């Protein structure tokens, strides 16, 4: 059975003249799932911004733990493939040199979590009508802290993958915090407002995945996952049949140790 992805790959590779490897029958599958907060959603915690007149009009909340009030979906959970030397679907080559943008917008970072590969470039942007600075200090890599006035942009290239998502902050508006996930493979997903995530076009083989959440750190949501590293192994079947279903996340995991 040929998967939808494989057909697509074949078409794309024909069109561009590459993808010899795709032609020899490699198979790809997509992993899905949904993180659900297993408890009463916590109250939104507003951050007082009244001391800074420019920001006072924006409502800024603590985004450490964002739970959908209606369906309890858990936003901003990062899932990525942590196996070494993962085969990449040829589709990803198109975006390998892309710019990935994080925007200072309304006195917060948009998006809150950015996922990218080492080959991509991070573009930091400021859409606010006043200046921010963006303090980014990846471990063992060159740190930056540019001032960005209105509409200014700044490009940055990572030299090293980062084990943990790298925080980006503004020293003027000290509540501002965003994250950049930098890996050497493109299989990184961040759950949406409903808690859904999707990793497309994974090689159909056994892979190791790791789950991280801002407040909890390594998020061991299921008991069969590795207790320390929050990893789980899974054999990816070709096609769409890889669904983790609802992953219930216990509120206990977010209690401060």
């Amino acid at each position, binding site marked *: 059975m040929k998967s939808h992805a494989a057909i697509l790959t074949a078409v794309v590779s024909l069109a561009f003249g590459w993808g010899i490897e795709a032609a020899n029958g490699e198979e790809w599958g997509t992993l899905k799932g949904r993180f659900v907060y297993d408890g009463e959603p916590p109250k939104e915690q507003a951050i007082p911004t009244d001391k800074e007149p420019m920001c006072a009009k924006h409502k800024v909340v603590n985004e450490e733990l964002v739970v959908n009030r209606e369906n309890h979906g858990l936003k901003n959970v990062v899932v990525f493939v942590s196996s070494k030397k993962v085969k990449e679907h040829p589709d990803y080559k198109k975006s390998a040199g892309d710019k990935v943008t994080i925007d200072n917008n309304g006195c917060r970072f948009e998006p809150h979590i950015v996922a990218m590969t080492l080959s991509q470039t991070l573009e930091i942007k400021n859409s606010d009508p006043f200046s921010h600075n963006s303090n980014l200090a990846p471990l063992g890599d060159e740190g930056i802290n540019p001032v960005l*006035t209105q509409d200014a942009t700044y490009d940055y290239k990572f030299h090293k993958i980062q084990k943990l998502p790298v925080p980006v902050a503004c020293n003027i508006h*000290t509540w501002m915090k965003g994250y950049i996930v930098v890996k050497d493979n493109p299989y990184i997903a961040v759950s949406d407002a409903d808690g859904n995530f999707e990793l497309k076009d994974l090689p159909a083989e056994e892979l190791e995945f790791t789950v991280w959440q801002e407040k909890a750190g390594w998020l061991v949501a299921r008991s069969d996952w590795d207790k320390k*590293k929050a990893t789980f192994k899974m054999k990816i079947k070709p096609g769409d049949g890889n669904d983790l279903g609802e992953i219930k996340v216990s509120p206990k995991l977010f209690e401060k140790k």
Partner: protein
Amino acid sequence: MPANEQTWRDQKLLHVVFGVTSIVMLLSTIWMLAKDHSREWKNYQRRFQRLEAYTADARLSEEETADYYAKEKELEHLVAVARSSAPPAEVVDSFVEEAKKKASDKNVGSRYTYRVDRIEKAQEELAKARRSARSRGGAKDGEEGSTDGIAESERAGVIERRNELIAAMQDVLSRAKQVEDNAQRELKFKRAHLDGVRSEYDIGVNEGMGEAQLAGIEDRVRVIEREINGDGDAVYGLLSAAQDAKTHREKLQKLLDRATADEALAQKALADHQADIKRVETTLAERRENLGKSFLEMPVVDAFGRPLKIDNIWLPQLTWNNNFRDVARFDRCTTCHQGIEKTAPGSAVKPGYPTTERIELTLATPSERPDLTEEQKLRLREIKGDEAVAEQELQYTLVQAYGLEIAKHGLFNAGDVTVTVVRPKSPAATARLEPGDVIEQINDVKLLDRSRAKSYLLDSVEWGKPLTLHVRRGTPEPYSSHPRLDLFVGSMSPHKLGEMGCSACHDGQGSATEFKWVSHTPNTPAQAEDWHRDYGWFNNHNWLFPMMPKRFNESMCLKCHHDVVELEPSERFPEPPAPKLVEGYNTIRQFGCFGCHEINGWDGPSRRRGPDLRAEPAYFAAAQSILTDRGLSDHERSLAEEVVAHPDRHEARKLLAELIKADAALVPPADEKAPQTDEKMGDEVAEQKALEMAGDAERTVPDQARLTPASHKLAGLLAADEETPGQFRKVGPSLRYVGSKLDLAFLNDWIKNPTSFRPSTKMPRFFGLWDHLVPQEKVDERGNPITDENGHPVMVESQGRKDAELFEPVEIRAIAEYLLDRSEPFQYVERYEGVSEKASAERGKELFSTRGCLACHQHKDFPDGKQSQGPDLSRIGSKLTTKDGQRWLYSWVREPNRYHARTVMPNLFLEPITAADGDVSDPADDITAYLLASQDDWKPAPVGEVNKGALEQLAFIYLKGSFTERQAVRFAKDGIPSDLAADIKGDEQLLLRADGDSDGDLAKKKLLYVGRRTISRLGCNGCHDIPGFEDAKPIGTGLADWGRKDTSKLAFEMVVEYLREHPPGHAHAGDGHAHEHEGAAKEGEHHSLDPAEMEPNTGFFVEALLHHQREGFIWQKLREPRSYDFKKTENKEYTDRLRMPKFNFDQEQIEAVMTFVLGLVAEPPAAKYVYKSSPRRKAIVEGEQLLVKYNCVGCHTVKMETWEFDYDPADDSFANGPAFDDYPFLMPHFTPEQLAASKKTDRRGLGHATVTGMPVPTTEDHEPDEPLYFTLWEPVAINGHPWLVGGPEVPVMEQNLNKDKIRPYFGGDFARLLYPRAIEIGRRDNPNVKPSDVWGWVPPPLVREGQKVQTGWLHDFLLNPYPIRPAALLRMPRFNMSSDEAEKLVHYFAAVDNADYPYQYHRPGGSDYTPAADLDQYEMALKLVTDNNYCVKCHLVGDFKPKGLPAALAPNLDRIYQRLRPGYVTEWLAHPTRKLPYTGMPVNFPPRNDPNAKLRNSLYPGESEDALRGVVNLLLNYDTYMKHNMKIKSMVKEPPPQAAAGESAALDR
């Protein structure tokens, strides 16, 4: 009597006698020679020569690897290539041209008979030869490479041709030289001639020669001068000829050198390569046994050739005292200690023969046993020859498997498995094996010989599994090198062997050449036994200077290092040079031993003899005492106050003394004077006198003294000038106002046993030390012991014990009463007005933890705080239970210097805090409340009734000293009658009875009298400032030369007996508990006192005690000071008992203190040996002392942590180094040598680096295969690449980190303690607080402070600090520091950072003048500064304060020009993290790709760097600029002209 043939004695007998004596003489001569031949030291020297040869052999085989030969071959080939190359044609052409030019010169050409044609011909032939050789070698024209394509068979021919060419050139050169020499000679002769003619002229003038004749001589002079100097084109002067010849010759020489440069270079490379091996070979040749040497070493012959001889070091200026005469020192120690200064090859400081140590290593094994291939065997044969192959197959298999070679036999034991070669990057190298290591054990198997090594390294190995090797490394004594050759003995060290010798530092008998006569001193009893067995060592009592045992090696540093602190680790010697000694010194300083035992380092006013630890003159105390005199005038009062705050200000002190003396002169002579009952004046009299003073001066009776006799007495003390006054403060708190904080119960309990309230106290214990007061046998009336039914003697408490139990409580009470009675009134600090909140212990607790209290104090609520500058405050509430005590605490917290003008406790600026809701709280009150709530169950022991009988008895014992026994009895009972007042002096005045005294008054007087006498006796004033004891002297023995004190003068008494009953280690000695717990039955039990069976450290000291040595005496004195009174108290007056208290020392502290005291030998060496620091080092040392004194380092880090680690140069992180894309002025300047040095790799192929900064804390999920990260605070070169501050963190693999060599940070514990608290506090307002920002809220590190701030500013700031960083949780407190101290600190920071001191900033054009163009620039820069996108977003500027979170606010920019150095401001603004890695300050003006270029350009046209420099200039000229913008004229309202005129007219009138 006729002569006959008979002899007087029987000839035959005489023959026999002669024969026998001859034989005896022969035998004794032989015996003598044999004895001489086998002298101990000769054997050592012979063995050391063997050791050297052995080591050299090993080095040779290590160097002579196949790689070495390949390299040598290659270099030789390169030499051959160079020698067969054609010299550059243009060089030869220039040479020829130069020669030809000269030869054709019209003036001198004829002298140069050059054969230039030969050169040209040879050049042609060489070219030809090369062409043909190359064509045969198969190379094409123009093809050059590492080989030049010349057939090797042809090379010799080519070389010959080339040699011909060079010879031809050399021929030309030597001819040129000839001509030059001739010209020089001619010139010299001509000049001599000229001088002759000139002197002829002079003689002519003298002798009155005629004009004409003189003119003739003048002409001759002129002619000769012309010949020398020439005359334009007409005459070519000799001078020009000589000069030209020289220039010409030099030119040719240079060209010839260039022609042969290739060859010279290749030759040098080859020679360098061979140099190491040559050196080893030379050593080997010298050391190896050979026939000639063996002959020279034969008995008798060795007296002439002297291959072995005694080494002498003669030190005429480092004398030693030989029976009252200083004689020069001869050290012969190196006769046996032959390897003492030998360094490892290629290093000036690494010991060549390190001291023996045993280590465990892990050696990886390959996956299978490697065997030699045929090819390898062939190669082996080539290098080593046929016959060696079989034998060496083992070696080569070892090399294959591990990169390891093993010697055929060991050096000292034939069976030792000794490593000779470790191949680079091999498993052996990775395991850190080194040549010379002896493998003693593999896994669990002990190796007894080499064959077993083979079997366990090759035959029975589980391949792929690592082996554990137990390795002995180093050389046994006496052959090993001195440790730390960087510091001692080495040629680069400050204590060079030839200059210092050995015995000056070690003591011992330096001229002896036999082990037992040297007076070596063993370090433990076990070692003593070993030495006795092996070398016949014995304890030689007759030699006064036995060697220092190893444990006290550092003592002797004091001979030359009088200030001690210079022995702290420094830049040059980062490893502590004398840690134990420094520890001892610090302990003595902290515990204040010098309070009783003066250590006077001066022998006369200018002769220094050793360390100087004396209490400072008591000016401070005297002035305080005088301040209580109510007769003082205002002027005197203000002077006294100045002396209290600044006793170092001599003018005020002297003036005050003079004024008081003038007053004292008004006092009538003693016989006319009314008796004074007390040194204090009655209040009424004083008031009366004060009133008189305050009245009209003219009306005051001028000849009546205003001041009290006590003040008069102190004037002498105030006026006294010492040439070299003591420097140290008393270590205990001042008790001058003790009544204002403590009550009788606490004082009583505290004096009785200070550790009861505070276990960590430094105050020693004086009372209850009764272990030595053992029970004694009960006797009947006749003095015979009474026995019980079993025949054992009946034991009863001794009188000594009974007396102690009776008198001590009285003494304790008396001291407390005296202190309270004499306590002076204290002005408490009043609470702030307008405080709306009640004191809250809860708020106080937070303030306590954040306002810096924990930087000096400990508290049980904060177990992570470990500082001990101030006392532990965990139960301070139990101490201050009275209302006064509580008021006092508030005053102390708010304004410590109110209580003690010079206290090291700073003023923390605890000003009222207005909360968001408008409530005002007083932080000092809150902290006080918290501290008072810090209590536990501890309560002082209840104060009982005074035993009147005992009090009287004590008074009697003291009175006996001044009166007859009968009087004493009477006075002790009834006091001294007042009619005797005129004759009573001193302490006894306290007992003078007044008419109306009740019994209670009398009892009180007795208590005060006994109290005062007890304080005097025990020397409380040694540590405390006590009213009435201002001029008291220290009570203990001076220690300045204690290290040489004659042991016969030490009173050992019965201490050995005591130790037999209380053997060390058996019971907790000295604190009284032992006595209580052990029943009386155990008392009197005797133990054998065998040092050898004790724990080695204890054994050493007991042994020393048994031998009546100083070490033993002081050890026991510090452990159990009163034990020397054992069985002595019965025959002593109670007050004559030993007084030394017991300090709360552990064994380590005792040894440290001993190390210091034993070094006090007062034998100053010649001036050149005494340590003198460079000004820079001095500044650093003085500064560090102050950093400790004021505990600046409690809050601030002044040195960052240092890591040493290895790395793989091929690792991604290090192969290329981090990219640098920044302003060039931010790049650190590493020299090419430094960069090259950073690339060096070791035997394992790993590089080595040392980084300084802060390790990034590891997270919980850290995996072993992940690197640790290190944030740099200093730039560093790693693997040839610069790594910068503010760049990436350095990744270090844990296994590569040299954990023993981590040098910890210095200072800043409080900042680190506060950091997590600060994050917690920050999270209250902002859950996303950035951890790196929080570093900005705690006390900042002061690393590179000297490069950062201006010296003048820092000085003023230290004296009067103001808040700089608005976000900080606490502000810098104000210390009671003198300007002199502040200056020393400023100097310290400058010196540490090699910054200019004093710093001077010259503004262009001077400070008052600013060119208009500059003003325009400032104007534009101000636009940038005030634009809401730049500086003012966070920074305060002048009166502007940005809105926004307080945590984001940054320092006011209006004082930058005073505070920071210009270079720093530029670099800071250009890239803040390059200066301060954690800063949140963004990069405002990046050198490239400025994202805000458009906005910036609109404000400040130009490039980023222009804007950067513009802003820097504005900030540095802020005051000048603001002055320009400030118009005063408009502010002045001038009065109308008429009014002005009128007023002045009025004045005229």
